[in-house]
């Protein structure tokens, strides 16, 4: 019984940890990727001019 609780508990703990790591990694990779709003599988790399697609976002950045 004790061994089951330790084992299953460790499994759940590691799973929850993995959840946060995966979520964090996914979000930060998407944020860091070149062009977050277009899922064009790398097509955008051929067009270095287009960085931010959302005009509203561009305005916000200019003001900073």
């Amino acid at each position, binding site marked *: 019984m004790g061994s089951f609780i*330790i084992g299953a508990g460790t499994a759940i703990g590691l799973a929850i940890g993995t959840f946060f790591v995966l979520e964090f990694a996914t979000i930060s990779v998407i944020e860091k990727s070149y062009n977050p709003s277009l899922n064009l599988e790398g*097509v955008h790399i051929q067009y270095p001019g287009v960085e931010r697609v959302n005009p509203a976002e561009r305005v916000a950045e200019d003001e900073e």
Partner: protein
Amino acid sequence: MKTEVRVRGKDFTGYRIVGAIAALLLALVFAWQLFELFDDDNLTVPEVRWGAAGDDSGVAGVLADDLITARSRLQDERYRTGPAPDGEVPANALGNEIFLTDEPLPRDTTLTRSWAMLDEDTGQMLQERQRVVGRSSLPYANAELFERPFARDWRLGLADFATHLGAIAIIGFSLLLALILAIRGRVPILEGRAHRTVKRFNLFERATHWMTSFSFIMLAITGVSIAYGDTLIRPFGDELLGATGWISTWGHPIFAPPFALGIVFMAVMWTMRNLPSRLDLHWLSKGGGFFSDDGHNPPARKFNAGQKLIFWSAILGGITMVLSGLTLMFPYYWLDLEGMSWAMLIHAILGVLLIAIFIGHIYIGTVGMQGAFWAMWGGNVDRNWAKEHHELWLAEIEDGKQGKA
């Protein structure tokens, strides 16, 4: 070794009744699966009218063809000019008021042109088992995934082997176990309990086992609901399928690390004791002595040949599952399209096989054999259990103790 037989498998009446009921239910499910397998549904029949709204030409789909062509042209243009939403949006070739619809199709109406007038190519394409090579002009690197010849084999592999034969393997094997329980009963401790125990697994070994098995079961449940959700969960509502789908796609990868860690620990703890030996052949040739209560179980050390097979399925199967699973989590990082298709097939087929194998393990570790469960739960087994199933191991530890004393 002389064994006085006091308990027989057939004495476990309650267990045998439960086994019989389970066998009956499983037989029904099994029959349904077999029916599904031979059910002739090779031809995909459209359920919706696929056409352009405002198409009065009578042959639905003609205009839709033009519309698709116009769309592709538009996408091609986008592809060449780059994604520039600030620029002018090119006009739709047929005007922007015409759009595609997918109204439900009234029975026996004219289908889209290609459905209605099968020429040689489309006729073949509708035939599940024949290949058509396709080409895609979409600006999407993986679009041809759906049109390569290998993609058809891949689809067949997933749909027929992994899905149907997988379900048949899992259900069929469970049915077999239920029948064994109903007819043979449990594998008994022939002499009855000695009420003296022997230490079999220490706390670390047990905790590792439960960490691995808990993770495995979570992986199996979420994996099955990903693979069979459409059959098993959709009947209870699309909403539920959506919710379980979301939980499963998260729940599946997150239990990979504890599972992988457990596999590594198990390999370190138990590999030496699971190397094959001559005894194993003898043990296997006698079927482990599981099917008779005559008191002549073949001798075994700590792990018998059956357990060794379980061990190596866990280690080798586990490693393959973890590696192919990682590959699926990072698509195209180190494999191309062909490699990804294989990774998916291997992950799916091995996955259902391992589920079937470990259903067998869980069976023998719980209802299938009297006294086995406590080895993993509390760490101690009854001495008579040890004597009947692992006599060489028992001798080994008792001699060891005497040697020390």
